[in-house]
């Protein structure tokens, strides 16, 4: 019994820490949905691209993993805006399903390019942080996970500040609430879309740098994080900033406690079960008040 309690404590700690990353990966997706009603199905692949950038800077360039944020975040900001400008903007007025299929196509392209250039190999960056552990009684707190949790919190706060205390943020939130009215009060909605997409993507750059010390990069890593992100944003309510943060933690805990309690990979089933139940019965999310 003592053993299983310790196991549970370990699962709770690990789940909470990884949940922070899930939150950060998801807020961008949620914000993009909130502003322009698009689910970016290439969201996970954007993260994958950022993880490869971070990996190569660390492994080949000898960078400190957390310094790579200086590259990954701006790079993803630009990549996001470029992809938006070239592919999404021309068909913004098309039926929503076309936007979904378009982003599915982009995810296929990014995934297959990664497979062609980097092969299916799993690449782990071995950094000085990778094996830093803190013992808390019988619970092991992995250093890089703790750092990533704190980093995700700081990044989320920064994003919150950006959205609520700056003119750009005001424009983004106004557009999300009512794009026609935002246009009337002088917001350039087109540019706001572009910026929001860029910022949403940049948050993935930050996330990638934070997880590369303890998580491997591979061509399909985006599929995993993408699915998690969809689950998190639905749980938190599409477009709901705070909801995504809380939901990320919930999913982190579900995954890791589930893995401790359930055999095999059945924990993932618990995550999807939660997701499906939420979609059916409470699609507005845990915090959402209004119906669609």
């Amino acid at each position, binding site marked *: 019994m003592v053993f299983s309690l310790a196991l549970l404590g370990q699962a709770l700690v690990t789940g909470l820490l990884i949940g922070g990353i899930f939150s950060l990966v998801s807020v961008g997706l949620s914000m993009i949905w909130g502003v322009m009603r698009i*689910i970016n199905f290439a969201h996970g692949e954007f993260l994958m691209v950022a993880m490869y950038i971070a990996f190569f800077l660390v492994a080949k360039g000898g960078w400190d993993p957390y310094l790579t944020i200086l590259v990954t975040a701006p790079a993803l900001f630009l990549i996001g805006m470029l992809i938006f400008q070239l*592919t999404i903007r*021309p*068909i913004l007025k*098309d039926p*929503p*399903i*076309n936007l*979904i*299929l*378009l982003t*599915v*196509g*982009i*995810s*296929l*392209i*990014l*995934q*297959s*390019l*990664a*497979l*062609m250039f980097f*092969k*299916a190999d799993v690449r782990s960056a071995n950094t000085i942080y990778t094996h830093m552990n803190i013992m808390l009684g019988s619970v092991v707190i992995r250093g890089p996970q703790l750092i990533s949790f704190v980093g995700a919190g700081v990044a989320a706060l920064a994003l919150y500040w950006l959205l609520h205390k700056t003119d750009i943020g005001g424009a983004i939130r106004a557009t999300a609430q009512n794009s026609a009215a935002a246009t009337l009060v002088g917001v350039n909605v087109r540019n706001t879309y572009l910026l929001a997409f860029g910022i949403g993507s940049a948050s993935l750059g930050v996330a990638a740098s934070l997880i590369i010390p303890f998580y491997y990069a591979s*061509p399909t890593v985006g*599929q995993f994080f993408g*699915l998690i992100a*969809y*689950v998190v944003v*639905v749980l938190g309510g599409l477009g709901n900033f705070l909801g995504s943060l809380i939901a990320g933690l919930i999913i982190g805990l579900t995954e890791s406690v589930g893995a401790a309690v359930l*055999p*095999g*990979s*059945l924990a*993932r*089933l618990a995550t*999807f*079960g939660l*997701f*499906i139940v939420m*979609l*059916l*019965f409470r*699609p507005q999310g845990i915090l959402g008040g209004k119906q*669609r």
Partner: protein
Amino acid sequence: MNELIHKIPLLLMVVVLVALGLPSFAGEYVIHIGVLILFYAYMAVAWNILGGYAGQHSLGHALFMGIGAYTSTYFFTVLGITPWIGMWVGCLLAGLVGWFIGFMCFRYGLKGPYFCLVTIALAEAAVYLVTNLDFLGGSQGMEVTWTGNAPRMMQFNGKTAYYYIILVMLAAAVMLSARIIKRRFGYQMVAVRENEDAAEALGVDTLKVKIQATVISAMLTALGGTFFAQYFTYINPRAVLGEDPSIQILLFAIIGGTGTVWGPVVGALVLVPMAEYFRSTLGESHTGGHILLYGVLMVLVILFMPNGILGLYNKVRGQILHAGLREKKGGAV
């Protein structure tokens, strides 16, 4: 150009004739490509009934393929019951699951992106479920035991018999698809797709229509799943339930043209040979080459011809016929 447009139905007939006689003059490899074309055309036609006609885009259709594949394979390898029976059990099971999913989703008004997400999640949940079910082989998957050339067990030497089975399945699916779109049910599906509120206001039972479309599509897809298992003789959760088959199924329909009878077939006919060419020429050094092709084509089609190849053809044809009419009437149209 005008001439060419009028010759296209003729061209189609030639394609059908070639398809019928292909195994008599082609080698094994070409027949294999033929089987792949017919198989994906079949799956895309099945997807198109729900995604194209009724406008409910399932991104997790492999769920039904997997139900068909696993049911018949379990019946065959464990219980010793022929896939000819197993495939109908899988078909019924998929129909039930489709009904349940349709009922749950549409009863609670899930639309657009939400429906996409829930279908992805269901298929993905099925992957993890089957991965943990030992009696279905877990992550290892299941092998369809080879019992020799046994037509009773849907097993044949060579590829020719498989070719004709999937050809008949495709013909039946296309006929079904062409019939229902001309009927009241077909018009109701299109009405739901184009404007659900208006359809509802006009007295269409939209919930029922969407559920029925889901069930039909699911049942057809499951039959294809059994064929897949028998032809490739090996299935695993990722191969028949995962994201990749789900995306492939809808890809051919999108690129060929959704909501049309022949669009999915055209999509597979054009795309499968291209993908195979890429796969064989790029070879091992560039795995993922054909997926890159899929992705690029998908993006290009959505950007420049959102109605697919057939949509573009119909548009061009319309313009040319229109121009011809104008010439005859001296530009007075």
